[in-house]
């Protein structure tokens, strides 16, 4: 079990390393939000330009984690189509190992991408002391795991590499916009505050923002519990999907059912 997880993580990180140029390209999006959107909206915001950038910095970090993690999850959709994974599927590896390995590998990739954004913190007026950095890294890790689990729960159900990104965008973007990453939830309309209670991204962003700026919207213990619960439920769900259709080496993506 542990060895299977390890093998999946090594596989994905080796492939990630081949694509390390992505780390740089992946910087474009958060920086754009931070310095273009941030400057534009910040100028009109009650918070003021400098404060607004500071405020959305954790949100933009969350964005980076969210998109990297869901993109990493796509590999499972690709994997179903490449022969190498067939060889993996006939190795005596429990399907749970593959699910956990994928979640961990995706989280690590997202985490690294997030860390690459951190050096820009001072430019956004964010002060990173030792305490803040430590708190931030811990919450980033938790957020990465959550987003990776979300990504996998989706990816596990798709066998098409063209459909998955469309569907995931249709779900991921609203989750991001509702999360309060780009505006304070306190002053948001009531329905948005309500919706945020059902949005794991909101809890993750709020935890990161709290770790950085010391102000929370949700009770941090509630956030922690919510994220851990989301990870557990979605990981369990992916394992279930992976196990349901072993025929056709589908990892659950087709209607062929494994008969025991």
């Amino acid at each position, binding site marked *: 079990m542990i*060895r*299977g997880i*390890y*093998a999946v993580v*090594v*596989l994905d990180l*080796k*492939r990630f390393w*081949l694509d390390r140029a992505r780390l740089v390209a992946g910087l474009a999006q958060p920086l754009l939000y931070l310095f273009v959107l941030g400057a534009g909206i910040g100028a009109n915001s009650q918070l003021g330009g400098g404060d607004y950038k500071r405020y959305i910095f954790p949100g933009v970090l969350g964005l980076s984690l969210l998109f990297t993690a869901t993109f990493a999850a796509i590999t499972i959709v690709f994997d179903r189509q*490449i*022969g*190498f994974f*067939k*060889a*993996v*599927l*006939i*190795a*005596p*590896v429990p399907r749970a190992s593959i699910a956990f390995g994928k979640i961990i590998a995706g989280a690590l990739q997202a985490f690294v991408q997030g860390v690459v954004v951190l050096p820009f913190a001072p430019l956004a007026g964010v002060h990173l002391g030792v305490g803040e950095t430590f708190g931030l890294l811990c919450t980033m890790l938790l957020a990465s795991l959550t987003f990776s689990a979300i990504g996998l729960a989706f990816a596990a159900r798709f066998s098409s590499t063209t459909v998955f990104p469309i569907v995931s965008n249709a779900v991921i973007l609203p989750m991001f916009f509702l999360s309060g990453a780009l505006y304070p939830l306190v002053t948001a309309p009531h329905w948005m505050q309500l919706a945020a209670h059902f949005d794991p991204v909101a809890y993750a962003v709020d935890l990161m923002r709290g770790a950085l700026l010391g102000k929370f919207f949700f009770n941090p213990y509630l956030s922690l519990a919510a994220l851990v619960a989301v990870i557990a439920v979605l990981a369990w769900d992916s394992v279930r999907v992976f196990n349901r259709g*072993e*025929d*056709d*080496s589908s990892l659950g993506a087709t209607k*062929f059912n*494994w*008969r*025991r």
Partner: protein
Amino acid sequence: MTAAVPTDSAAVEVRGLVKRYDKVEALRGVDLTVRRGEMFALLGPNGAGKTTLFSILATLRAPTAGTARVLGHDVVTDRDAVRRSMGIVFQEPAIEQRLTGRDNLLLMGLFYGLGSAAARQRAAELLKQLDLADAADRPAKNLSGGQRRKLELARALVTDPQILFLDEATVGLDVDARRGFWAQVRGLAATGRTVFFTTHYMEEAEVADRIALIDHGQIVALDTPQALKTRVGGGVIRLQTEDNARARGWLTEHGLAPEAGGQEIMLVHADPAAVLPELLRTLPVKVQRVEVHEPSLEDVFLKLTGRGFDGETPVPAGRPGGRNGGAA
């Protein structure tokens, strides 16, 4: 889990195996036993069900009906034991093209539960054994076709399996690369491992201890290469004469049926040795050269899979095998 398996169990035992895809019935009741230590070939035309059978044996697909055991382990109820005991080279590539050969093997080792150090050592061992050491640190996509197939073999051998499935493992290789590949495989077979393979190259099938012919999802013949050839009946006579056209005409008149066309006259007959002396004496055309040989596996294949050279129609689906194999 570690249910004791009798060591005298067959390498592969397939009983009444049926596999239905959405509409296609790829296997329609296959019975097959491969003995331990055997080189066993599965021949059949495209779409006959070979890959389907292999993917069931490799636990990739579930049978619709029937049972299959690999080294005594049931492929459905005892999957992990099957997975641990066999290696397979798939018809399509199954290596991560972007990673190096060494990384591919290393990862496979990890997936099979070897520790990092052990996996690394096993990878190095295999690369050396298969003559891939020089190419090992390039991305797999930059290897030649032959090297890539060897890498596939190496991948299948990571756990040192007792039984090896090869699904058209040498497709697309040149003669030399194929020889090299089979030399490796024979080396493995010599150490008592079972090799169960498919191929469309008949000369590769010659090395098999036994051959099964599969057509339309059913085994239509199963025997040693020698016995299969006899089954086609008799042998082939080739004649070079001073006037082939005239000789052909004469042969046809006398109830022998020479094959049409060709530089030489080709004649399939149940008992060439018996007719040849008489034939040579009475043929009114001077014969320059005579050759008698047994039917090749190719002849057997064409004959028994119903794509016969005498224009037979394919074995109708549902007919329980077209064995009999009478004389031509």
